C-alpha cells in the first residue's frame, strides 16, 4: 500500500511547505501527547487484528475521510481522523503518517515526530522521512534534519521535494545562497514545474547579484499571458519586484497588472501593482491599488508608505503625514518594538 507516492510527496512539499517558516512559535501546547487517542468506536472494538482491521468498512471510510481532509487542508480534523484510525488499527502506518501531518501542519512538531517515527516503524517510506525532516527543520535540528534528508534521498533520489526542502533549510538557516541554489537547481532538474523551488532559486540568484538570470528563470516559468494560472502569481510577484529593481518599469507594470487580474484579493499583489504604477507615474492606478492593499491587509505597512509619498507629491501634507504615521506604527508593530 503506497500511501505517499513520490508525486504525492512533491505536491505535499510544494504546497504545504509554504508553512515551514512558521517555526517554533506556531507549536501549540494543547493535548500534545499521542495517547490517549479518541475513544474507539464500537467498530474499533470489533477490529481484533491487523488484517481484519484493514478490510473493515469503517477503516476504509476513515481512510477516505483522511484523503478528503488532506485535500481540504483541514489539519485539526485530519489529526482526529488519524488518531481514530490508529486507535482502530494500531498497525496502520497510514494512520500514523497522516496523524503526523495533522500535528505538523498545526505546528505541533514534537508530536508530529513521534507519529512519523511510529509510521516508519510500521513501514519505511521516503515521504515519511521527508516529513520527519520537515519537523526537524521546524525545530532547527541540523543533524537530524540532514540524516532524514539523506535517507529520503537514498530511497527516492528523483523526488524533487527532498532537494527543495534541503535548499530551503540552507537558505533560511545558513543564508548560504550559493549552496542553497545548488539544491534548488537539483529540485528543478527533477521537476521543472516546482514553482517554489524556482522562486527560491530566483531569490538566491538575486542575493548573488545575478539578477538577469533570475529574471529569465521567472519569465520562463510565467510563459505567455494566455497560459498564466493561479500558480503564476507568486512568480509574477517576484518578477515585478525584480523588474522594478532592474528599471524595467513598463514590463513590471504589465506583469503586476496580470498578477492583479489573477489574484485581485491578494494584498501583496495589489501592493506590487501600486508600486509598479507609482514607478510609471500612473497615480490613479497606484492610489486605487494601494488603498485596496491596505484594505485587504490592514496590518501591511508598505501601502501606507507609498500612499504617503503619493499624497505628498500631490501636495496633500495632512494625508501624507497620516499615512506615514500609520506606516511607522505598523512597521514597529511588525518588529514587535511597540509598547
Amino acid at each position, binding site marked *: 500500500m503506497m500511501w505517499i507516492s513520490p508525486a504525492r510527496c512533491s505536491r505535499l512539499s510544494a504546497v504545504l511547505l509554504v508553512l515551514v517558516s512558521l517555526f517554533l*512559535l506556531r507549536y501549540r501546547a494543547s493535548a500534545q501527547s499521542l495517547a490517549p487517542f479518541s475513544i474507539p468506536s464500537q467498530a474499533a472494538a470489533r477490529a481484533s487484528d491487523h488484517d481484519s482491521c484493514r478490510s473493515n468498512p469503517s477503516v476504509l471510510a476513515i481512510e477516505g475521510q483522511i484523503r478528503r481532509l488532506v485535500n481540504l487542508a483541514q489539519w485539526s480534523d485530519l489529526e482526529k481522523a488519524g488518531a481514530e484510525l490508529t486507535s482502530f488499527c494500531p498497525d496502520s502506518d497510514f494512520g500514523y503518517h497522516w496523524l503526523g501531518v495533522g500535528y505538523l501542519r498545526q505546528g505541533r512538531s*514534537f508530536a508530529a515526530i513521534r507519529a512519523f517515527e511510529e509510521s516508519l516503524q510500521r513501514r519505511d517510506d521516503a515521504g515519511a522521512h521527508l516529513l520527519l525532516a520537515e519537523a526537524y527543520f521546524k525545530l532547527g*535540528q541540523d543533524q537530524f534534519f540532514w540524516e532524514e534528508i539523506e535517507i529520503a534521498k537514498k530511497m527516492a533520489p528523483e523526488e524533487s521535494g527532498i532537494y527543495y526542502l534541503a535548499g530551503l533549510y540552507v537558505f533560511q538557516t545558513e543564508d548560504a545562497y550559493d549552496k542553497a541554489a545548488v539544491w534548488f537547481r537539483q529540485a528543478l532538474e527533477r521537476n521543472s514545474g516546482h514553482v517554489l523551488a524556482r522562486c527560491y532559486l530566483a531569490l538566491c540568484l538575486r542575493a548573488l547579484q545575478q539578477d538577469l538570470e533570475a529574471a529569465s528563470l521567472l519569465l520562463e516559468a510565467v510563459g505567455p499571458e494566455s497560459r498564466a494560472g493561479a500558480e503564476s502569481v507568486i512568480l509574477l510577484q517576484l518578477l515585478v519586484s525584480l523588474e522594478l529593481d532592474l528599471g524595467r518599469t513598463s514590463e513590471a507594470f504589465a506583469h503586476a497588472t496580470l498578477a492583479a487580474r489573477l489574484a485581485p484579493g491578494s494584498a501583496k499583489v495589489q501592493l506590487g501593482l501600486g508600486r509598479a504604477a507609482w514607478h510609471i507615474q500612473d497615480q490613479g492606478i497606484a492610489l486605487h491599488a494601494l488603498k485596496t492593499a491596505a484594505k485587504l491587509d490592514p496590518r501591511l505597512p508598505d501601502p501606507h508608505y507609498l500612499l504617503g509619498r503619493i499624497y505628498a507629491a500631490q501636495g496633500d501634507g495632512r494625508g501624507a503625514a497620516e499615512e506615514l504615521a500609520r506606516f511607522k506604527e505598523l512597521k514597529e508593530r511588525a518588529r514587535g518594538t511597540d509598547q
Partner: protein
Amino acid sequence: MAQTNRTVLFALLLICPMAAQTIVQPAGKRVPQAKTREELDAFGMILDAVSPQSTLEAAEQYRARFPNSEFLEYACVAEMQAAMDLSRVQLADELASIVLKRNPNNPEALITRAEILIVRPPDSLGTAWASAVEDNARTALDRLRVLSAPPFTSPDTWVETKQSMLSRAHLVLGQLFMNKGQHEEAVSELKTAVALVPSGNAFLLLSRAYGKTNQINDALTAATMALSLGPSAVSDMAAREIQALKSPRF
C-alpha cells in the same frame, strides 16, 4: 495562565538563540541542538505536558537525564513556570537562580524572580529587597526592549508574548511603588501594565493607586474593569473596592 506561560516559553526558545544571532551575533550561535533524538523527544515531552504537575515532572526528569543539554535553560524555565502555577514559590525561585546563572538576561526568570520577591520579601535581604525587585524588573524591561521579533516568527504571536512579559514587569514595579508609598509612580506603572495586557489584577491595583492619589472617578473606572475581567477572587475584591469608593468617606 498556563497557556500564556507556554507562549512565553516558546518565545524564549526563539528569543535567546535567534536574538543572539540577529542582534548580538556571536559566531555560530544558533537554535539549541539536541545531541540525541531521545534528548529532543524528552524536551518535547516538557512542552507537550498538559498540566503544570506533568510539566514539572517531565522537566525534572529531563534535567536529571540530560544535565549538559543545550535546552537545559528552557527546561528550567518551563519547570519554573509550572512551579509558579502550582504555587511552589521556593522551587520557582531556585529554578530562576539556575536559569539566571546560565543566562543573566533571561527575561522570564528576571520577571519571575521579581514577582516572587514582591510577594515574599526574604529576611536575608533586609531593606535591599526593594532594590532587588526593581533591578530584576528593570533589567527584564531593558532586555525585552532591545529584542525584535525573531526570524520566522509570526509578528502577532511575538507582540502578544512580549506585551505579556512587559506588562508583568510593569505590574511588579507598580506593586513596588505602592508598597513604598510612591502612588503617582505606581499609577504610571500600572497604567502601562493594563495598556499592554488588561488584567483584573492589574486594574484592581490601579484602582487602589488612583484611590491613594484621590482620583476617585479613575479609581471607580479601574475597579469596574477589574470587576468585569475577574477572576472571581479579584472581582469580589473589586466589588468591595467600588463600594468603598462610593462611600461618603470619598
